[in-house]
């Protein structure tokens, strides 16, 4: 009885998690997509007369203005473009690279497999931020380099995940029989193996979009990421820090935007993980 009651409650909670995650993520995506319509004045309009207006006083600037009199709300929404762009493209790149490498190394084993796995060991020993500092010191910052850096540092996760599943799947009857009747290798990899292991990959993708938004914002905050002239959450926080003493809102709202976006994606990822894998095998 009690277990049944608690399991319905659990299910209700799961739904709540999904609704909250979808609302947050969806709302932020919509705001970012329609930022041009919402803020026709543009994000770079400087109004020195209105500089450092506090939030919730002047409804022309609901979240206040920054030291140059630019609207904080408009800039927060515009900054979301960079975050979502970096989050989505870097994950897409890492998935393509990692899944192909994982499929190939798990299916063919041998030298290639050993090389990929040792490479993974090396990457695990180097925290992201150190890799980032070295990488940026050599090739320089900027939007494209940030995305490349994230791809380089993350494809290994997908490769390991996919390789692990391929190792067990390749011994199963449906793969053995596909081989026996002479199905070509690339068909086995992409039509037979891939659909059977994509679930955990999708979960990891959702969580990594969230994670990469965090990483991009910390890189930009440190001055290693995207151009400081482009409005981005990390960049706004770096600017705002100087004014923390007398203008808290310049630092509070961009950070809140990061928190809510990442939280929305994490809620979705968490919900997805439990829905795709009710036994919790992949739970970290």
């Amino acid at each position, binding site marked *: 009885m009690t277990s049944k009651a608690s399991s319905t409650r659990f299910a209700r909670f799961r739904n709540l998690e999904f609704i909250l995650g979808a609302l947050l993520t969806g709302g932020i995506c919509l705001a970012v997509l329609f930022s041009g319509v919402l803020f026709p004045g543009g994000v770079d309009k400087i109004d020195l007369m209105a500089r450092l207006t506090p939030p919730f006083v002047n409804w022309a600037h609901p979240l206040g203005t920054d030291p140059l009199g630019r609207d904080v709300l408009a800039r927060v929404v515009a900054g979301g473009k960079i975050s979502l762009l970096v989050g989505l493209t870097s994950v897409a790149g890492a998935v393509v690279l990692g899944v192909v490498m994982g499929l190939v190394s798990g299916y063919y084993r041998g030298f290639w497999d050993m090389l990929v796995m040792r490479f993974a060991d090396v990457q*695990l020993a180097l925290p992201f931020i150190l890799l980032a500092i070295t990488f940026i010191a050599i090739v320089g910052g900027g939007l494209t380099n940030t995305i490349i850096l994230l791809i380089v540092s993350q494809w290994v996760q997908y490769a390991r995940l996919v390789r692990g599943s391929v190792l067990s799947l390749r011994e199963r009857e449906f793969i053995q029989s596909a081989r026996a009747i002479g199905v070509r290798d690339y068909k086995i990899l992409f039509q037979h193996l891939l659909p059977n292991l994509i679930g955990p990959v999708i979960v990891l993708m959702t969580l990594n979009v969230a994670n990469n938004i965090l990483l991009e914002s910390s890189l930009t905050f440190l001055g290693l990421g995207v151009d400081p002239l482009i409005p981005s959450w990390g960049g706004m926080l770096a600017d705002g820090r100087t004014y*923390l003493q007398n203008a808290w809102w310049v630092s509070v709202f961009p950070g809140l935007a990061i928190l809510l976006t990442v*939280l929305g994606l994490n809620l979705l990822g968490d919900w997805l993980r439990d829905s795709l894998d009710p036994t919790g095998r992949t739970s970290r």
Partner: protein
Amino acid sequence: MAGFLIKRFLQAVFVVFVVTLTVSYAIRFTGDPALMLAQGAGSVTEADLVRIREGLGLNQPFLAQYYDFITGMFRLDFGRSFMGGTPVSQLIASALPATMLLAFASLIVSIAISIPLGIRAAVARGKWADQTIRILSLVGLSFPNFWLAIMLVLLFSIVLKWLPPSGMDGFASFIMPALTMGIILTATNVRLVRTAMLETLQSQYIMVARAKGLSESKVLYKHALRNCAIPLITYFGLQFGGLLGGIVVVELVFNWPGMGTLAFDAVASRDYPVLQAVITVLSLMIVGVNLLVDIAYGLVDPRIRTE
């Protein structure tokens, strides 16, 4: 067992080899150190540059330079900083303890919060306490660490004026940096404690302990917690890399005189011997800790060795 030890050790050596080789090779692409050293020295002739390069050993082939770097490393000699010529080992010797103290303090904060919360969540599995803790841990996972640091400064230094906003000076200066990293770590640790406890709570000796009529806190903290200590210590150990990575960023917000600040200043001033040394030392430590954790785990749990 010997086979496992040797294999694991060789893997670690290989990782260190690749990391140091890559870093030393990659850093050569960042520019000519001789030119950077000569900056501000007035008029510099090509002959001067050649002399500087010879002095730094840059005229040798790459592998010879790498050999020098590695042998120097064993003597704790990482060369000299481009800025002022201080021996790099001296800079590291003052920055590393600051970072390690902070790492240690963060770990303590995180353990102090995550163990009681994780146990509470496991005991109340599926109930409101569990769900609340789960949501809180997701919120914690979503915090940018540098923003959390800024918000703590805003609250405790600017509004309440309780704590110093930056620097490392006495106990009070530890509170905010350790709290920042501690909270971030707690977000993952609560889940680990919960999972480990859930497994343990189902075992028979817990039923026996309860049947004996022991108090619930004794059952949980004495019997259950001790039995899931081994996996927990492993998880905490494996987090070491992530912890150091996070601290590097948090150090910058609090102007903490540690390895992160050192590395970041080195990038800004293109001081590559320092950068190379910081990355080498930190990755050596991470590889070392991971190796120790694996060995300790292999000693305790024989199944790991055969994997």
